[in-house]
C-alpha cells in the first residue's frame, strides 16, 4: 500500500520500534493499553485534586477557601475528569492489554484505528482541562457551574468555557465509539479457532456488552451537546421554552446516555472480578452462563430506565411507575452477579492477596451502594433524597467499589504480567487498608448528611451538618493521599522486583497466563489450541 506514510517506517515484524515513535505510531495493543492506563492515572490525580479541594472547602460551614463559582467549576470538572478521563480510559487500557491475550489473537482487529482512539484522548483531555481554566484568562467568560449534567438553561448561559467542554465531549465520544467498534470486531472476528462465544473469558464478555452500550448511547450524548451548541450560538431553540423547545428534552437525552454510562463504568470491573475471584478461591467461576445472561439483561434493561434521575420533573404517574419498576428490576441481575461471586468463593481454598482483598471489599461495599440505589428508585422516597448528599453517597458507593476498586484489583492482578515483576505485596495490602478505610470515612457520613437534608453541589451548609462533614473531609484527605502509595507501588514494580512467572497466580486459568511475563512484543501470531479448561 502506501510507501510514503511514516506509519510504514515502523515495520510490523522485523524490528520493534523504539523511542517516541514506538508510542506515537503504535499499533501494538500492549503499548496502546499501557498508554491508556498511564493517561487514566494522570487524570485520576487531577480529578482527585479537585475532589480534595471540594472536601477541604466543606470541612467547615461557611466559605473559607474557594469562591462559589470556582467551587461549582470543581464539582463539574471532578466528575468529568474521573468518568471520561480516568475510569473509561483505564477500562479501555485493560481491554487493549488483555482481550487479545485472552482470546488468542495477535492484536486488536483494527490496529491503526486503535492508535487513533487513544491519540484523540490527549487532545480531548486538553480541551476538557481548558474548559475549566479559560475563565481565568482575560475575556475568558464565566466558569462552568452546571455540574457534569450540563442542564440547560444554565448551560446556555455559561461563557465560552462551555464550548470547549462541548468540543471535548465530542472528541471523547469519537474516541470511545472507535474503541468500542474495535473491541466488538476483535471479539467477534479474531478469537482463536475453537474459542466459541460461550467459551470466551468473562472479562471479554463484559467488554462486548460495554462496547455495544457505548455505541448505543454515546452518540446520543454527542447529539445532545450538539443541540446545546446550536442553542448557544446558532439561534435554535431545542431546549428553550420561549422558542417552542423544551429544557427537559436535554435531561432525557443526557440520562439516556448517563444511566447506561454507569454500567459502562461498572461492567469492565465486574469482568475483572470474574477472573480475580476464581483465581484466589481456586475454583472455576460459579454460573458462567448466568453471568453472561445477567450482564446482557443489565445492559438491556439499563437502556430503558433513565428517567429515575428525573423523578422530580413532573412526569405522569404511569411514567414514574414504569421507571421505578424498571429500575428495581435491574437489581435482580445485578444481585445474581454478586450471588455468583459469593458462590464461587463458597468452600474455595481462598487466599487474600491484594486483588482478592479488593474483590471481597467490592462485594460488600458495592452491594451497600446498590441497596441505597433501590431506596432512591422508589419515587416518593426520592422526592426527599433527590439532589441531596445521599445521592452523592450512593453513587460513590457504587462507582468507587464497582468501577475504581475493580480497576485497582485488575491492575494488581495483571501488573506482574505486564511488567514481569511482582509488586510488593506488603505495600499492596497497606494501600488496600488505607484506601478502603479512607473511602468509607469519606462517603459513609454523607448518607446521614443527605437524609438530614444537606443538598449536594452547595459550597456552604448549615452548622448542624458540621460533624459529619468534618469526618468526611478527613476521610477524603486520607483517601486522596493514599493514591500516592499506589503510584509508588506501580513505579516500583515497573522498575524492578522479584521476577514473575508466566502463570503469576497458581489458581489463574486462561490463555493470558500461557505467555511469558512480560509478554513478548508480539503474541499469538499463530493461534493457540483451545483446551476445555482454558475457557472461563
Amino acid at each position: 500500500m502506501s510507501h510514503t506514510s511514516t506509519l510504514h517506517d515502523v515495520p510490523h515484524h522485523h524490528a520493534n520500534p523504539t523511542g517516541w515513535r514506538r508510542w506515537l505510531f503504535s499499533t501494538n495493543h500492549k503499548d496502546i493499553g499501557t498508554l491508556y492506563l498511564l493517561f487514566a492515572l494522570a487524570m485520576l490525580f487531577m480529578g482527585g485534586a479537585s475532589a480534595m479541594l471540594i472536601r477541604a472547602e466543606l470541612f467547615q460551614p461557611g466559605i473559607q477557601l474557594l469562591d462559589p463559582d470556582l467551587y461549582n467549576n470543581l464539582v463539574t470538572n471532578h466528575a468529568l475528569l474521573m468518568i471520561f478521563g480516568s475510569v473509561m480510559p483505564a477500562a479501555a487500557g485493560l481491554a487493549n492489554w488483555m482481550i487479545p491475550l485472552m482470546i488468542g489473537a495477535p492484536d486488536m482487529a483494527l490496529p491503526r484505528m486503535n492508535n487513533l482512539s487513544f491519540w484523540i484522548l490527549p487532545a480531548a483531555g486538553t480541551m476538557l482541562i481548558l474548559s475549566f481554566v479559560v475563565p481565568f484568562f482575560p475575556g475568558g467568560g464565566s466558569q462552568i457551574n452546571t455540574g457534569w449534567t450540563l442542564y440547560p438553561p444554565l448551560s446556555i448561559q455559561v461563557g465560552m468555557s462551555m464550548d470547549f467542554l462541548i468540543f471535548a465531549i465530542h472528541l471523547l465520544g469519537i474516541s470511545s465509539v472507535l474503541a468500542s467498534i474495535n473491541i466488538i470486531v476483535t471479539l467477534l472476528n479474531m478469537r482463536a479457532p475453537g474459542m466459541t462465544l460461550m467459551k470466551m473469558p468473562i472479562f471479554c464478555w463484559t467488554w462486548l456488552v460495554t462496547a455495544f452500550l457505548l455505541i448505543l448511547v454515546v452518540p446520543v450524548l454527542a447529539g445532545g451537546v450538539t443541540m446545546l451548541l446550536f442553542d448557544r450560538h446558532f439561534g435554535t431553540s431545542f431546549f428553550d421554552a420561549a422558542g417552542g423547545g423544551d429544557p427537559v428534552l436535554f435531561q432525557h437525552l443526557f440520562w439516556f446516555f448517563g444511566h447506561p454510562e454507569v454500567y459502562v463504568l461498572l461492567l469492565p470491573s465486574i469482568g475483572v472480578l470474574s477472573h480475580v475471584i476464581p483465581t484466589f478461591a481456586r475454583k472455576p467461576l460459579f454460573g458462567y452462563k448466568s453471568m453472561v445472561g445477567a450482564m446482557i439483561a443489565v445492559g438491556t434493561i439499563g437502556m430503558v430506565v433513565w428517567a429515575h434521575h428525573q423523578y422530580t420533573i413532573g412526569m405522569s404517574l404511569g411514567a414514574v411507575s414504569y421507571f421505578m419498576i424498571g429500575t428495581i428490576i435491574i437489581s435482580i441481575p445485578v444481585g445474581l452477579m454478586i450471588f455468583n461471586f459469593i458462590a464461587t468463593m463458597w468452600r474455595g481454598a481462598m487466599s487474600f492477596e491484594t486483588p482478592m482483598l479488593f474483590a471481597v471489599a467490592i462485594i460488600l461495599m458495592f452491594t451497600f451502594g446498590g441497596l441505597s440505589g433501590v431506596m432512591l428508585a422508589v419515587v416518593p422516597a426520592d422526592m426527599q433524597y433527590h439532589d441531596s448528599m445521599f445521592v452523592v453517597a450512593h453513587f460513590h458507593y457504587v462507582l468507587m467499589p464497582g468501577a475504581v476498586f475493580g480497576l485497582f484489583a485488575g491492575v494488581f492482578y495483571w501488573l506482574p504480567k505486564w511488567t514481569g515483576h511482582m509488586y510488593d505485596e506488603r505495600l499492596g495490602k497497606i494501600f488496600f487498608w488505607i484506601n478502603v478505610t479512607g473511602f468509607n470515612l469519606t462517603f459513609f457520613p454523607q448518607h446521614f448528611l443527605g437524609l438530614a437534608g444537606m443538598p449536594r453541589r452547595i459550597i456552604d451548609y448549615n452548622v448542624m451538618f458540621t460533624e459529619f462533614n468534618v469526618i468526611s473531609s478527613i476521610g477524603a484527605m486520607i483517601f486522596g493521599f493514599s493514591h500516592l502509595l499506589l503510584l509508588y507501588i506501580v513505579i516500583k514494580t515497573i522498575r524492578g522486583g522479584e521476577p514473575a512467572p508466566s502463570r503469576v497466580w497458581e489458581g489463574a486459568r486462561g490463555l493470558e497466563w500461557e505467555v511469558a511475563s512480560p509478554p513478548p512484543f508480539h503474541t499469538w501470531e499463530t493461534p493457540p489450541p483451545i483446551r476445555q479448561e482454558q475457557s472461563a
Partner: protein
Amino acid sequence: MNPHDPQLRRKNIRLALILSGFALLVLITSFPFWQNIFQILGEAAK
C-alpha cells in the same frame, strides 16, 4: 489467524463500517426531528 490475511481484513472492516453506520444512525435520531413527524401523523389520524 493471520492478521494480514486480506479476507479477514475485509471482514473486519466490513463489520466496523456496519457498526459505525449504526452509531451514526443513533446520533441522527437523537435530534428530535421526529417529534414533529409524530405530531403530523397524529393530526392526520384525527
